[in-house]
Structures are given as C-alpha cells and as structure tokens.
C-alpha cells in the first residue's frame, strides 16, 4: 500500500507536535486495527488545526503513510469535506451554504453581499489575511436557511443587516486582538 520511495523526513511525527500525534493515536485506537480508513477525517482535522487552518499535499501524504492507507484515500476525504482547506486561508473562514434549501432562500444574495462588503470573490482571501469566503455543502441547518458558518458558529436566517453585524463583530475582535498585541509589545 505504501509508497516504496517515501521520504522518511516527511514522516508525520517530524511534522507535528507530540501532543497532536497523541491525539491522532487516540482516534486510531477507537477503531479495530484492520479498519484503517475511519480515522482519516479526525487525523486531517488535527493536522489542519496545527497547520494554520489548511492542509498541504505533503501533510496529506504524511497522514496517509501514518495511517497506512493509499494516498488517494486521504485526498478523497480531504477534497470531499468542505471543512478541509486545501489552500492557505484567512483567519476567519466564512463558509456560506449554497445547497438547495439555502439557495431557494437567497444564498446567492448572501454571497453577493459578502463579496461586495469584503471586495473579494468566493474562494479568495482579503489582502490583510483576515477573511476568506467559501461556499460549502449542506451543514444540516436547512430550517434556518440561508445560513453561514464562521469560527465554528452557525448564523441562520441571514439578512444583509445580520451579515453586516457578523462582519463588524469579527472586525471588533480583530481590532481588540491587534490592540492587545500592541499593548503586549509595549510591555
């Protein structure tokens, strides 16, 4: 299964902290040893978190080697789930659902408004590296369509006003943390 020419310096243990490896090992232990594919999602989540919120080919290959599954099995999972980011993203990823329910309830208007406000297109990141807009598949909140998710929080029944509020909340958090770091720098 494994690649014969695999470069050992790219071993997952050399790319992640011992804590992260321990977390992945915990997930592996939850499944019978011959079932190698179930821990892929969990492992990718851990890796993504430890890599500034995105995955690289190198990391995905390392996960595949670590779990002893074909490389392609990891790529399949990583490309299927929209929570995995395959390129560098901003600090706050705004994931807008554009599946059937949200689309019927005006997801395209939500996306348009976000694009106008942030002056970027879907899939792009603002120059300051703060915002990324992404369209995602159904997040099981059809009852509150249209919806978006940002920083692990669902925002439902969106209107332009609500979106503006969400954006200004993020901006406030950003400003706060900037000031905090300025203060720390002065100390």
């Amino acid at each position, binding site marked *: *299964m494994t690649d*014969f020419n695999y470069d050992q310096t790219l071993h997952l243990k050399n790319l992640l902290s011992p804590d992260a490896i321990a977390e992945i090992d915990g997930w592996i232990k939850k499944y019978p040893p011959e079932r190698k594919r179930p821990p892929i999602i969990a492992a990718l989540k851990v890796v993504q978190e430890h890599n500034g919120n995105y995955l690289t*080919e190198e990391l995905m290959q390392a996960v595949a080697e670590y779990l002893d599954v*074909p*490389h*392609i*099995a990891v*790529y*399949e999972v990583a*490309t*299927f*789930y*929209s929570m995995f980011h395959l390129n560098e993203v901003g600090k706050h990823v705004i994931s807008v659902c554009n599946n059937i329910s949200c689309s019927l309830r005006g997801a395209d208007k939500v996306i348009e408004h976000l694009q106008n406000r942030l002056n970027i297109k879907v899939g792009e990141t603002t120059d300051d590296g703060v915002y990324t807009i992404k369209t995602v*598949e159904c997040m099981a909140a059809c009852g509150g369509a249209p919806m978006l998710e940002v920083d692990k929080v669902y925002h439902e029944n969106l209107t332009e006003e609500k979106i503006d509020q969400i954006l200004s909340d993020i901006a406030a958090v950003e400003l706060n943390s900037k000031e905090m770091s300025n203060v720390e720098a002065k100390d």
Partner: protein
Amino acid sequence: MGKVHIEIDGQKLEAEVGSMIIEVADKADIYIPRFCYHKKLSVAANCRMCMVDVANLPKAVPACATPVAEGMVIDTRSQKAINAQKAVMEFLLINHPLDCPVCDQGGECELQDLSVGYGDDVSRFTEGKRVVKDKDIGPLIATDMTRCIHCTRCVRFGQEIVGIREFGATGRGEHMEIGTYIEETVESEVSANIIDLCPVGALTAKPSQFKARAWELRQAPSIAAHDCLGSNIFVHHRRGEIIRVVPRENESINEVWLSDRDRFSYQGLTEGARLLNPRIKRNGEWEDCDWQTALNLVASEMKRIIGASNGNDFGILMGNNATTEESYLAQRMLRKAGSNNIDFRTRRRDYTGDGRGSVRSGMNFPMENLDTMDATLLIGADLRHEQPLTALRVRKSTGYGKAMAINPFDGEYNFRLSNELQPKSNMLAQEFACVLAAADALRPESLNAEAKEWLDGIEFNDEHKEIAQNLIDGEASCILMGVYVQEHPQAETINWLAETLASVTDSDWGYMTQGCNAAGNKIAGAVPCQSAAGGKSEQGKTAKEMLTEGLKGYMLVNCEPDVESIWAEQALQNLKDAEFVVALTSFADGRVPDYANVMLPIAGCYETSGTYINVEGKWQSFAAAVKAPGEARPGWKVLRVLANLLDLSGFEYESSLQVINELREKFDAVGDVRVARKVPPPMMVVNEQETNRECLGLYMVDPLVRRAGALQKTPKASTHPISISRVKTR
C-alpha cells in the same frame, strides 16, 4: 447453495441464491445495459443504468445490486424499466461532451451504444457542461476526464484486482473527479487494463491514440509472447499494420486481463528499426542481398565449421520469443548436421539438472488453482515483474489464504505476506533447506534416508516451522519458484528442495520460467542434453559454455546475448571474435550488426504462425496476424530451407502445422516423463560474487519489448544499451 426460480422477460430461470439479477440475466443471454457493473469487480451500483422492473416493487431497481429471490418476476423492457433507463441516460449525458467524432473510443463506446439503444433522442439540458482538466498519467494511458461518467471501474480495479489504489474520486457532487489528485504516472504493471474497463473515452490507449477507428480494424487471435503464461490476445490491425493488442478472454490463463508488457510490446514491431532484407557484411560494410545468396553463404560456413571441428565449434542460441516450431527445426537441423550445441537458457548458471527432471519444465497444477490456495510459498519469485497476472491470482488467494516468500531481494508485492524471509542471495538454498528440515520434523515419516541424511545438522527456527506448518495445514498449497531461482547457481538444489518439500507437505509446485516458451523450447529439444520430446542426445555445449568459452560459429535466432544473457560482456567479446555469426532477427539495430556476418530478416511476433507451450503445459498455436515487412520470412521457413541447403533429408515441411504435429506425435508417444532424482544434489557454498544479483528488467526480457517505445518510457523500464530508433520502416 440453494436454488431459486425466477422469471426474466418471460423466460423461466433457475438461479443460485445470493446471485444478482444481472448475473442471472447475463448467463441466460438477456442483455441489461450497464456501465459500472463488471463481473470481475465488486458491485458499486452507482451508474443506475441497469434499472429493471421487478413485479410488486414500487420502483425500478438496479439489476446489479438486487439479489434474486424465489418467484421474482423481472421485466427488463417494461415501460417502467424503459422510463428509468431513459432518465438515467439523460442524466449521464448531461455532462458528457458530444465529441464522439474526435474521441478514440468512438465506434466501440459503451455510452455511445447504450445511448442509441436505451437513451432518448433529445436532451432537455440547456445549461453549461462541466469540464475536467486532463491529467498526464504516463506514456500508456491517455486521459480525457471530461468524458468520465464516474462508473469507478478503474478505481475498483486498482483497489480490488491490483491491490494498489492509484485512482480515486476526489471532490464532491458537481466537482467530483476521477484521477490521481496529484498528477503522477500510474506505476502498476497491469495498469492499462483500465483502458478496457473504461466504458467511455476517458481512458484510452496512448500509443494507439488517433491511429485508427474501431470499425477499420480486423482482429486476429494470438498468444502473447513475454511471459510463461501465454496470455490470450487479439491483435487488431488495419491493412496489415498492427494498431493495438487487447486481451482475449480465457478464464484459465489471463481471465480478462493483460499485462502492460503483453499489450504494448507490439510497438517494437511497428516502431523498431526493422531488418527488411537479408544482409551480408563484406569488408566491414553491410550489403543487402537476396535470400539465395545469404542462405548459401550460411550453409557453406556451417558445413565448414561443423565439419572442421566435428560439430564442436558451432552452436545455436534461441531467443526468448522463439516458437516451438523454430526451436524444433533448429535443433533437428543442427543435430542432423552433426552438432548438439543448441540452447535457449542464456540466463542459467546451473546445468547439473540436465538429463533429469521432466521433459518440459513448468507447473504441475493448473494456474487457476492459484486463486484458491490456502498457502502459497514464493521462492525467488518476483511475480509482479515476472508474470504480472499470476501476482493478481496469488493476491486473490490472500483474501483467505496465506502468501509467504523467501526472496533474497526487497520484493514489491501487491498482497500481504504472512511470512517473509530475506536471505542473502548466496544463502537462498540454505535458508530454504531450513524450511524442509522443519517440515521433516513436523512429518518425520515422509522423507527417505538419503534426504534425511542430507538434512542432518540443518537447524531451523520458529519462522521456518511456521512456513512449513502453513503448507501442511493448507488443504491446497503450493510452492512457486521464480525466474530468479532458475538463474541461481544452485537452481537444481533449490528445485529439489521445492519438490521434496512439496511432497512432504502435500503441496503443488511450479517453476515459473523465463520467456514465453521455455517449456516449448525444452520439449522441442533446443537444449544440449536432450533432443525433441526428451529424446536421447549426446551432450552438447550449454549456453554458458558457448558464450563464455567462445565458438567459431554462432547462429542466433531472435536472440541478443550481448543484452539478455548473464554473461553479456563475455558474450559480446566472443561473438565479435567468432569467425562467423549468423543472426536470424527482426531488427536491424542494437549490437547484432557489430558482430554478425550475415543477418537474415525473420518475421516477428504476430507475423509468423507458431506454437507456444505455457508453464502449465498448454500448447497454444496461432496463425500470423499480419504479414512480415519487406523480405522478412517466418523463422521456421528460413530454417527449413537452410536445412535443405545443408543437404539434410526429412525437411519437406509445407506448413508450421506439419512441424508442430510431428513434434506433438513424438511428445504424445512418450508423454511428460519425469526422471526422478535419486540422490539429492550437493549443497555447495556459493561465493557471493558468483550469485545472481538481478534478473532482467520487466521491459528488458526480449528483443521486441526492448524496442517498445511507450513501455520504455514508463518508470518501470530500466535503462538499456539499445537505442530505440523511431524511424518508421514501413
């Protein structure tokens, strides 16, 4: 297994419990359209094309994933079924481009056929179609992934049959793509089977891309010539030019598959620099001449050298693609002319078994049985690179059985090994002997006194014992010796160990041999120790003696000892030093022109009729698919005429059939006699320097493969000294 009674389209059928509707329908010749279903692959049920109407079920169901039940009444062409089929077809065509006129699959495309047969004539889809970026997956397979309909046959082939999953479905929904994600060359040695599996034009053969249309091609049944299986093939040609080679189904040999080597080797014929006329070297310059002149010169030189040396100084070396007819005629001619120096084993170090063993060498059990072995022990066998399709069979058996290996190299396996020993090359026999000693300890009553004495003092550990125990425990078990063993300096010892271990553990055994016709060459008598069908012969010189000690005269039949023999360097020097070398060859390039004095153009594979005898002892005859180019003639005809010119009697054959029938009669009269070895061979200690370090590369095994352009560009091809001339000669 119980039986149930069902009815399909009014036809009453009996079916096994647990079988799917589509299997039963296929057996009864009732066609149900399908894309994702394939009898050799798992059921995916994702194309939904095989919808049928089952009475009392509210909706149409997929025939590939619906098991039969007692009393089931199925209608494949009811209005409900037709509606479902039309709807599925409309969906499949939503994103499929309408580029059939420029698609290589056009004319033999399942999607095209089924859309005519089962689809509607109008599409209601007016939106934009999606486009998928193409991936370069190597020199063998052309991709056009926009045409892909996501049947996942290629994905399942990799996962289930090959055991190396290179393809997958990335992305989701509208963005789902079949591919390798990261652009990389597919590496498997059976990768091109996905070309046959692909129901559309997404995966097509790159070497034959845009060369011909399916309806222009004629197909001729033939036998593949690069490993000892003798895979059944169809040669597709247009007006005498070979366009491609595809597998011909034979469940007992290649099933429905074909190795990449057998599939693409034909390129050597169409792209290699072919020898088109007989040539004589005069004062160091090659001159074309007619057959008469060339053959007269060969005959007189042969007479002179054989006459002057009492047969000692002339020898014939047969190549790996030589047909049984060619070998039979060559040895008969040579022996009648007064010499026994003929051999095809240019990669054998140990000749001590000559005169013993069986008339043919090979397996003592049908290849199919490999699928269901409980235990398979590989000795010096690199199955994936020697006989790629046997590796697939062994892989099948590992679903429930065990595979074990004693290989003195870091092997690549597409199945899991339960036990693996990796001795040093010169210690292979010693390591293997430990397993026999362990088996003897487990079953002390089986061996005779000589063997027990031989084993005296050999110690074994738990691993050896486990291997022996697995062989004993397995209801069906076998020991396979690979090409590596046949090249080993202790080949005879290892062969004896294997056969003895097989008898102690009630296992089958098999010698996997080099080339496509080792069994045929041996039966034909192209060995210095026996004539045709195991007939007596005075001992002549072996290939090793001929190549390392040097002869005054050589005849090479489709053989390039300077590349393919173990003693390549010595061979080259001795061939250069020889007084006279005649090469019967299909090619004008390589180093043959450097040392030959006469080159006679003979027909290549697929251009001559002949017979290959495979490793199981199956005689497979074939006719020429196309005519040889220029003045090239089938090898058997050249040898027959040469025998006439040597004034030998009994060479009045008018067809290759007469030749093979004569041999067959001789062989059937004696059968496959085995001369048992009474005393075990000596266990010598082999110097590390004298032992074999490598076998011929996957794509180096014979002159044809070495010139097959696309194969030589794959990652599995190793570098080799022959430059491939891309000059078209026809």
